[in-house]
């Protein structure tokens, strides 16, 4: 999973705006309490991914995270003693001690898992739809060398992965089959690591002849703000403002313990709809996205 430029409003937006938008969605998920709002945010992230043409990549991350969300829910119900609605009494189970499974712990765990899933999906969306070079150009203003180190690491990962594929293929071509099991894998790993050192030397020489030794702190760019830059920046600010407002004025309160106390479903639905509308509005503009 990596960034690839596609014709979408999110890809067309500058990294600062696109990154802020993804971060605002993740922050909204971390702050949200009500299940309706969390489900809406999850669907919003997936809809955003579809609008950016990267639904498959983000959905894959969400599918990978789903079992972990389930594990979080199960662990929570096993270890948390709070909640008054007992679903089952399992007695003494080492190392948990007396285990009473409560509805509240189950719901809280499920919500925590869902929150994790939304945050991971928002991060996946950030990874595949926000230009890392543009982002690193921002970082250059703070530290040229750290930014470059991060870039090189980003670039080297797919290169080394392709080295590993080639070396593995060559191993299979050896007359003895290249061996089996851990020893064979270690041999491939060692060869890839050795190759990485050679590559590092070549890259260092390239950096030298590209003038990296005299690199100066980057200057602020005068790139004009496009409609997509403005739309995603405004959307990110609005999501952040709504997140803060929802915390300060409990629009859709939800308390799992000691018994589940949920605010009105109507107000939660309004809040969820507001998040979705604000977040997805920038994806409607399709001009100048290629």
């Amino acid at each position, binding site marked *: 999973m990596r960034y690839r430029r596609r014709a979408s409003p999110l890809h067309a937006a500058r990294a600062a705006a696109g990154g802020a938008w993804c971060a605002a969605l993740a922050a909204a998920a971390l702050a949200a309490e009500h299940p309706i709002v969390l489900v809406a945010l999850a669907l919003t992230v997936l809809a955003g991914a579809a609008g950016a043409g990267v639904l498959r990549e983000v959905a894959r991350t969400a599918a990978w995270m789903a079992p972990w969300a389930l594990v979080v829910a199960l662990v929570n119900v096993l270890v948390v003693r709070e909640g008054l609605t007992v679903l089952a009494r399992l007695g003494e189970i080492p190392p948990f001690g007396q285990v009473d499974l409560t509805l509240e712990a189950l719901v809280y765990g499920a919500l925590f898992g869902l929150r994790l899933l939304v945050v991971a999906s928002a991060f996946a969306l950030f990874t595949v739809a926000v230009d890392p*070079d543009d982002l690193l150009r921002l970082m250059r203003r703070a530290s040229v060398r750290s930014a470059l180190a991060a870039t090189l690491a980003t670039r080297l990962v797919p290169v080394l992965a392709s080295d590993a594929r080639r070396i593995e293929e060559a191993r299979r071509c050896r007359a003895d089959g290249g061996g089996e099991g851990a020893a064979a894998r270690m041999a491939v790993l060692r060869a890839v690591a050795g190759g990485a050192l050679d590559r590092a030397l070549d890259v260092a020489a390239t950096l030298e002849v590209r003038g990296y030794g005299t690199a100066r702190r980057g200057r602020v760019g005068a790139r004009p703000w496009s409609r997509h830059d403005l739309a995603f920046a405004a959307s990110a600010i609005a999501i952040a403002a709504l997140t803060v407002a929802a915390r300060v004025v409990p629009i859709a309160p939800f308390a799992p313990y000691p018994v589940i106390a949920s605010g009105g479903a109507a107000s939660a639905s309004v809040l969820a709809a507001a998040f979705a509308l604000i977040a997805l509005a920038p994806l409607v503009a399709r001009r100048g996205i290629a």
Partner: protein
Amino acid sequence: MSAPVLELERVTYTYAGAEVPSLRDVSLSVAEGEFVVLAGRSAGGKSTMLRAASGLVPHFHGGTFAGHVRVGGLDTREHGPAEVARIAGSLFQDPESQVVLTTVRAELAFPLENRGHGPAAVARGVEEAALALGIAPLLDRATTELSGGELQRVALGAALAGRPRLVLLDEPTSQLDPVAGDELIWLLRRLNEEWGTTIVLAEHRLERCLPAADRVVVLADGAIACDAPPPEFLAWAAGASPELQTPVARMFHGAGITPPPTGVKEARRALRARGIDLDAEGALDAGDTTAPRHPKRRERRAAALAFDGVWHERRGGATVLRGVDLAVAPGERVALMGRNGAGKSTMLRHAAGLMAPTRGKVTTNGRVALLLQDPNDYLLHEHVGEEASATALAAVGLEHLVDRHPHDLSGGQRQRLALAIVLDSPGPAAVIGLDEPTRGMDRAAKATLADRLNAFAAGGTAVIVATHDPEFAAEVADRVILLADGRPIADGPATSVLAGGWYFATETARVTGGRALLPDAGAAVLRAQEVVAP
């Protein structure tokens, strides 16, 4: 004569830990606007000279350095590579290691940003470099998605983004297919002719670049052996270093015709001037006899390798092989040719069992030893002796190097070691497959490899070579299969397929109108024509 943009004054350099110098008392002066080709066998000092000109020697590599290198008036003793980069752009062999950022636009902007240019200057520099090199459509593409040729162009763009007066190129086409390699040389010629950029290019395939060159500098054992314009260089090479001759120069030399031509056009002109008109009527091409045919059942049964209606369709992707039918007899020598993506490598992978057909089947009458493109990928151990048995090492002439580290071997030795690794079994392999074995090889190493493959074939092993190099194909193959879009479009004797082609033809065939494939045969044709001509 304009002022030198590059000047080497009595430069002697020894790499750290090395016992012999890589450059020995080298003095050279390159004037503004010159196109200089560095020639010579591998390890002769070409790369070291270029690295000295870019300031990497000695600043990056260390070692012992004597003499002076001045680039645009900057002495590299006082100015490091980053400062020299303002005057000299550098391009090396491996495109993967020269592209450091994730998008093409960022890559082109990088050297300009390093010099502290403002956003407007960076944007202009990127735009100009992209347009000059024809890579504007790639600007927003991820560098990980580019082909080798595209990557090398992007790296050249990054080297040129600051409009350097001098460009230093170390075998930039060695990792590219011939089409991409020719395009790169054409670009360099345009840069030199239209913008007056000084070019210093190290290259093995001299026939590609001699027509554009003003001078050829030959390095042997770290010293300059010849420094002359192309015709004089070719005359010198005929006596002193025949392996550096281009195929047509070798053909003219064999026929006793002087002066040697620098390219096909000049060769034709010289022959016409002598009354020799080699039209296509006497070509070896047998026309329809090169049409691919289905092997008969008996042929398939006796074959060392047979493809029976083999398809390879990628899941969610392209169809790479389309119903390939093929039979290769024991001891037969076959060259697979075709553009990138035609299916050559995929066919070899199917032969070796690395891939399974999605339809059809592949049968062999024994083991298939496959040597993939990069021999380094086969080297997994600390010593040569651990990589293959003593018998296998002796078969490729490496038995005396068992204690060496595989990565300390030369390029040709590494390839022989990889060959020993894939052939290291109690019985002989039924088939040896090689994927682009001559990339980055000098002519002498190619000749050695051809001899070795011919010896295997004489022992009954079928040899299949996927190659873009028509000269090498003519040397090792008695049958050539031309692939396009995943299926053979021509299949016949090398004399037919390579003599009648336009792109897939040897240089000798192009000059002799398809009457001969290799220089020695071409020389015989010319001698015969000279007798006939009044």
